[in-house]
């Protein structure tokens, strides 16, 4: 029986279940197949801070959202067209995000009165009419799985555990996804336990067949591959892209990469990823705490490595003092902050952009640090390379501000050729650079390159360049301890001038019609939602311009000019207006902040509304 095939241009699916239900894995696999199939896509994993909160509870719900389409898309989507809810908790936690008419696939086996009560359902939504505005597909996923596996030598619990594969099979059928790679994946994952492997494959296939035969689904959907720039693609998440970017930078600089880090959500994965690649000479060190992590990285930088430390907001707070030391020492160092919800421990697994001002100012004294921010998961690759470039060229710590959404989200990425990556070759100091009064030569660690204002990077082991550096104020040039008033003023200004003078590319404005009067200015992971919102607005015939900042410190030189070109500048941020403060303070432009601090990316629809309101007000 072949069913009708309906063409769609895009779909948003959300998988939701208990932390132990394997939703992240299911979503990952569906995503990989979708990427392989050639759709454009964007994902949003969303899970609790606990490892595995008690089954069936609201705090235990783990979700994974995937948006895929036959055209270029920019966000994981505002509201899912399809929700797969493995239990009542998953339904309850997610139903409010669904538009009317959405498809609801519910695992009826879990809708027991006990489970319903656990999350405060007085009546069963399966039959109390409360879901009438959705297309409900009640399916006994658990028992169907158990039934499919009845011939296997498995306990009930073990069999039930395969229900996510059943669901994946069913969805794969429904959306015409390829299956081979999923089976291969299972082979790798369960290769050592053949019985479990066979069961999972059987569950997956049973799900597929179920989709094909059940009357629950009258149609099958097809979403054509997207037309993307020609080239080789892969799907990549932000944390992996960032890790690869660091490795690539190290290769292009010809200097080993050293990571000193302490685990913290959502940054730990970078440590995990980098520690797999020692064959690139990559060194990773899990330190005793954040301070030791950055300390060791700084020590490695001093020794001529590309020192990197990775963390999230609370870790940055702890590293502040050492970042100040790096500023004083003028050594290269990359500080990766994968931002999460704050303040304090906050919302460890949620996203936020509220560390920008911490990165700018979170140190004692005048201690300027450049800031680079990626704008999409794949862009983490380029942003990491740029951060290393600035760090090594200007001998300075650099902030790389990612966030939880970029870190865990993924998208297709056109794989660059190695040759296309910038050449980051570094010149270490090798000769004395100062002539004493008596004509003898000396090495002065604080003589600056006249162009970059960078000081020489003289690595221990280099004969004749023995020198001492430290966190106390030092005399311009010689680097000796100096308490002189004029020297201090000069050094403070020199350090600032070095950062202010960093060569960063101009910001590019996207204003196709050329007659927009409103500019949307963003940074970091709001790129997708802002872009999607701008498209919507334009599709309604309203002109609006858009610019996105990769460099937050220093700002691109043309930014002031750009801002002046518009009547209104709107700055949407997942904080209370941090970039807005900097822009207003520097350019005296009455920028309008638009803020949400919900731990989730903006919704394009909502942003579009905001833009239209502002356009209407001009």
């Amino acid at each position: 029986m072949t069913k009708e095939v309906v063409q769609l241009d895009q779909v948003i699916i959300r998988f939701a279940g208990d932390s132990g239900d394997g939703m992240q894995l299911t979503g990952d696999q569906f995503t990989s197949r979708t990427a392989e199939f050639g759709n454009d896509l964007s994902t949003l994993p969303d899970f609790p801070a606990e490892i595995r909160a008690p089954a069936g509870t609201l705090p235990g719900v783990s979700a994974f959202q995937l948006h895929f389409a036959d055209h270029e898309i920019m966000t994981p989507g505002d509201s899912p067209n399809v929700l797969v809810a493995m239990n009542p908790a998953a339904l309850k936690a997610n139903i409010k995000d669904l538009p009317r008419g959405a498809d609801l696939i519910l695992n009826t086996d879990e809708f027991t009165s006990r489970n319903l009560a656990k999350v405060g359902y007085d009546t069963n939504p399966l039959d109390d009419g409360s879901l009438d505005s959705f297309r409900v597909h009640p399916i006994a996923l658990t028992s169907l799985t158990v039934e499919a596996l009845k011939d296997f030598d498995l306990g009930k619990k073990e069999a039930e555990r395969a229900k996510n594969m059943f669901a994946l099979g069913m969805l794969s059928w429904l959306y015409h996804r390829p299956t081979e790679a999923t089976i291969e994946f299972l082979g790798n994952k369960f290769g050592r336990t053949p019985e479990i492997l066979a069961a999972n494959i059987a569950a997956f296939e049973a799900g597929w067949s179920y989709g094909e035969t059940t009357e629950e689904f009258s149609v099958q959907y097809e979403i054509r591959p997207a037309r993307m720039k020609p080239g080789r693609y892969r799907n990549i998440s932000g944390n992996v892209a960032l890790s690869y970017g660091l490795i690539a930078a190290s290769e292009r600089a010809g200097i080993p990469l050293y990571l000193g880090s302490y685990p913290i959500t959502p940054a730990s994965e970078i440590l995990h990823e980098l520690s797999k690649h020692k064959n690139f000479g990559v060194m990773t060190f899990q330190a005793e705490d954040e301070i030791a992590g950055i300390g060791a990285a700084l020590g490695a930088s001093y020794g001529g490595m590309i020192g990197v430390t990775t963390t999230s907001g609370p870790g940055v707070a702890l590293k502040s003092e050492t970042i100040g030391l790096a500023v004083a020492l003028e050594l290269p160092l990359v500080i990766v902050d994968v931002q999460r919800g704050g303040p304090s421990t906050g919302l460890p697994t949620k996203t936020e952009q509220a560390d920008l001002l911490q990165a700018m100012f979170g140190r004692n004294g005048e201690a300027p640090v450049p800031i680079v921010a990626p704008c999409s998961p794949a862009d983490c690759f380029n942003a990491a390379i740029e951060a290393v470039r600035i760090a090594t060229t200007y001998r300075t710590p650099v902030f790389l501000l990612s966030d939880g959404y970029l870190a865990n989200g993924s998208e297709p990425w056109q794989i660059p050729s190695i040759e296309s990556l910038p050449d980051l070759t570094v010149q270490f100091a090798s000769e004395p650079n100062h002539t004493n009064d008596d004509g003898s030569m000396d090495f002065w660690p604080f003589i600056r390159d006249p162009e970059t204002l960078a000081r020489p990077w003289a690595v221990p082991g280099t004969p004749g360049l023995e020198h001492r550096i430290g966190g106390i104020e030092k005399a311009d040039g010689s680097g000796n301890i100096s308490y002189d008033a004029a020297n201090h003023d000069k050094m403070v200004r020199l350090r600032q001038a070095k950062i202010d003078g960093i060569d960063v590319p101009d910001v590019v404005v996207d204003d196709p019609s050329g007659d927009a009067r409103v500019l949307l200015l963003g940074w970091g992971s709001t790129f997708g939602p802002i872009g999607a919102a701008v498209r919507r607005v334009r599709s309604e015939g309203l002109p609006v311009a858009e610019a996105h900042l990769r460099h937050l410190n220093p700002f691109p030189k043309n930014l002031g000019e750009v801002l002046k070109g518009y009547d209104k500048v709107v700055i949407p941020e997942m904080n209370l207006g941090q970039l807005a403060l900097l822009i207003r303070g520097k350019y005296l432009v009455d920028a309008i902040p638009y803020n949400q601090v919900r731990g989730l990316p903006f919704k394009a629809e909502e942003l579009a509304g905001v833009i239209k309101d502002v356009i209407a007000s001009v």
Partner: protein
Amino acid sequence: MSEAVDLGFPSLRLVPKTEAPQTAKDFKTDQEVRWCPGCGDYAILAGVQSFMPELGLKKENIVWISGIGCSSRFPYYMNTYGMHSIHGRAPAIASGLAMTRPDLSVWVVTGDGDALSIGGNHLMHALRRNVNLKILLFNNRIYGLTKGQYSPTSEFGKVTKSTPLGSLDYPFNPVSFALGAEASFVARTIDSDRKHLTETLRAAALHEGTALVEIYQNCNIFNDGAWDPLKDSDHRDSLTFRLEHGKPITLVDGSRGVYRAEDGTLQIADVDEVGRRSLLIHDAHAADPSVAFGLSRLSDPLSLANTPIGVFRDVKRATYDEMFQAQLHKAQEGGRGDLAALIAGKDTWEIAP
């Protein structure tokens, strides 16, 4: 002038040797030494500078890293590479350097406050990891640079600016502490005893892994005479045990010695009474740190009676940096990574033009 003899320091086998003979003077910088006149730090500096040539290393392959404190100004006075970092963090910074650069001889200078107050966490982890660092802890039982507050090694009840009614903290015993933190090398010496200082530095340099050397140092401004009983020629020999591997443990004057009491605990008695043969023979290389720990408990933190100096423990244990480098090399044995292959990964697809 001492020649660059190759002592075959195993811990330094990867550090380039110098051909040129060196003298203490080679290790002096042009910077004015800014300690108070009379400070014990001068003696340590002189001792270190005159010991350095023995290592026979290229000067440029030696690095001194310190935290903050009077003691931590040390690197500025050593004509090698050096970093005066921030309070308490030197072991962490030095660890990053040492594990990435096996060709360097990395030394840390720290104070009792720097190492045991703010820096306790880094010190303890460096010790257990056994990174190839030589850590000199200048213990003056006071915060010198901040003008005389009590430190974690100050004797109980100490009256200082921050404790006008006497401090309430039970002091750390740096040797016990290090042993509890799995240190592979722990020693103690005294600023004014050049010979013993030099011997101890030598033993530390010979050791592979983290070596902690506690140096009793006089701060003549804020805690003058803290170690006087161990220095004044009338008393010191009757107060100090000199630990020497393979030798019975006695006071320097030979009057009293350490022996095992019936109940197994370490006790001190007149040598004449118990007989020289029943004295404990010092075994710095014992795998079990328990005896060393017992020795560290002999001294009285107040009177300083029965203070052992010398090497408490010196055992061989794989060093962190060696294993770190080994993992790195092993990972590259099959050939260096291919960047293009890495970033492409396994799941790719082609969009045709």
